[in-house]
């Protein structure tokens, strides 16, 4: 049954990925779709931590910010190639998660939430206040990505690149789910004590998934920086952390497809709701509340439950 859910996820995503450029009328729409893929990448990673393993992170935008600023600061201060800088951002993000995760993942529930919140705020503070290094609240330019002499530019190009990276991220996440570690993470989500007596090293399993989620977020941040050619501390702020959590929750905790759908909703809706002018945030908030009332397991698991059982599951 998990295997067919896995295929459904890959097929649905591939279909949307291939069809969207044909359906979207302008490069503006392609840019929005690109933003969806980027946010979805971070959400798919966060879903591994939150949905699969049940560990909350309210500071995930901090890792996103590290990735985003890596591609700005690496070339500027160290003279690194943007691609190499992105790689350095992933490593840095993973190392920070490894270092911080060891002590804070002992905490549970609200305590873990507050500890990760602190981590996120710390990263944001550094990005916001170290003006000489990061450009401060005004943000900083990101040089253009050049791959083996090819200057990466254009909405459609970025659409394909970010979508392909997301596809890879989705594939890896689905693979993880259907492995001993994936089962261990779902097990410790339900009962840590039972997981431990079954031989699962709970602390290590949590740490591995925390580092993975941090790397997903950093990669998404780097893509955003390279795509926008500009980053501000907003990429790492608390609101963005909350957005990422909201994407996972409304899409459906534990569902990779749900994380993508959640990212799409939270990215597209604010653009679509601009017709409500000053009330767009109120309408967005109301819609999130309605989603949670009527599809409380999240959109994807909620809708899947309405389908005949063997069809999706």
């Amino acid at each position, binding site marked *: 049954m998990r295997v067919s859910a896995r295929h459904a996820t890959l097929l649905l995503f591939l279909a949307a990925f291939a069809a969207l450029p044909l359906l979207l009328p302008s490069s503006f729409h392609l840019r929005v779709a690109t933003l969806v893929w980027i946010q979805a990448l971070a959400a798919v990673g966060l879903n591994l931590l939150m949905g699969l393993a049940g560990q909350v992170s309210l500071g995930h935008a901090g890792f996103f910010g590290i990735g985003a600023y890596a591609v700005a600061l690496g070339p500027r201060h160290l003279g690194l190639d943007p691609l190499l800088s992105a790689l350095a951002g992933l490593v840095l993000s993973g190392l920070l998660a490894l270092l911080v995760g060891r002590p804070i993942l002992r905490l549970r529930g609200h305590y873990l939430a507050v500890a990760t919140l602190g981590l996120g705020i710390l990263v944001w503070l550094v990005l916001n206040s170290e003006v000489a290094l990061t450009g401060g609240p005004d943000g900083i330019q990101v040089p253009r990505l050049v791959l083996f002499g090819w200057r990466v530019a254009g909405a459609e190009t970025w659409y394909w690149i970010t979508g392909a990276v997301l596809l890879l991220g989705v594939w890896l996440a689905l693979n993880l789910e259907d492995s*001993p570690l994936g089962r261990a993470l779902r097990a410790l989500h339900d*009962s840590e004590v039972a997981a431990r007596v079954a031989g*699962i090293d709970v602390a290590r399993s949590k740490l591995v998934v925390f580092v993975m989620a941090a790397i997903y977020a950093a990669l998404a941040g780097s893509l955003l920086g390279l795509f926008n050619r500009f980053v501000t501390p907003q990429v790492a702020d608390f609101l963005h952390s909350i957005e990422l959590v909201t994407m996972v929750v409304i899409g459906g905790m534990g569902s990779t497809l749900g994380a993508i759908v959640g990212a799409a909703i939270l990215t597209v809706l604010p653009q679509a709701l601009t017709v409500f002018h000053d009330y767009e945030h109120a309408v967005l908030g109301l819609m999130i509340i309605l989603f949670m009332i009527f599809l409380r397991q999240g959109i994807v698991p909620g809708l899947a439950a309405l389908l005949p059982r063997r069809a999706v599951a």
Partner: protein
Amino acid sequence: MSTPIIEARGVGISFGGVRALDDVSFAARAGEVFSIIGPNGAGKTTLFNIVSGLYRPDSGKVLLAGEDVTALPPHLLAARGLCRTFQNLQIFLRMTVLENVMVGRHLHEERGLIPALLRLPSVLRQNRATRARARELLAFVGLEKRADDPAGALPYGALKRLEIARALAAEPKVLLLDEPAAGCNAVETEEIDRLIVTIAERGVAVVLVEHDMKLVMRISTHILVLNHGRILAEGTPAEVRANPEVVAAYLGRHAAEAAHASG
């Protein structure tokens, strides 16, 4: 007589000044059903929690296959062959019945991150083997028909058996069962009785905490009686039943049952 596979020596622990266990020792051997009985609050589950690494004792030692494993974390004890079930069920309720047992195979699986992420053929082969073994164990406890149901949908008695199947998946040398028959009806209790005997016959040392005296007297090879955190008596079922102190402290209420079981 063979050397004990699991042994507690002079184990004691206090909680907030209350001596929950004091100088408790026992030893169980492979193939044996070793029962721990006593009134509520006697310290049976506390002893289980110490032996399975969830609590660290203030005094005394726990030995597994002759090695000192006192306060080793549970996952390392599991790797050395000690598994347990819980009085108040610890099931992975959001996973399917089959997946619950698959988790029990964790220790016998290759757990490399990179092969898992890349979904190498070795991982697929292993998933198939794990699934097959889990199905065998579900058949053993009579739950094969429920394999693909969410565990949360099973009735209480079935969850008790599911926990046993999950623990067996780790291929333990020592299995601690904490009130496996509690809340089960007569038919389910008989089923669990049969399971425990079979498990012990296969060479596992079963350490059992149970209130159902009929069950305990019927299947135990040795019985340890605890009262107020201390050992009240130890011996074969016949010896324990004949012990006047045990009858006064505990068996009194169950005397009829116990007598019935011996008849």
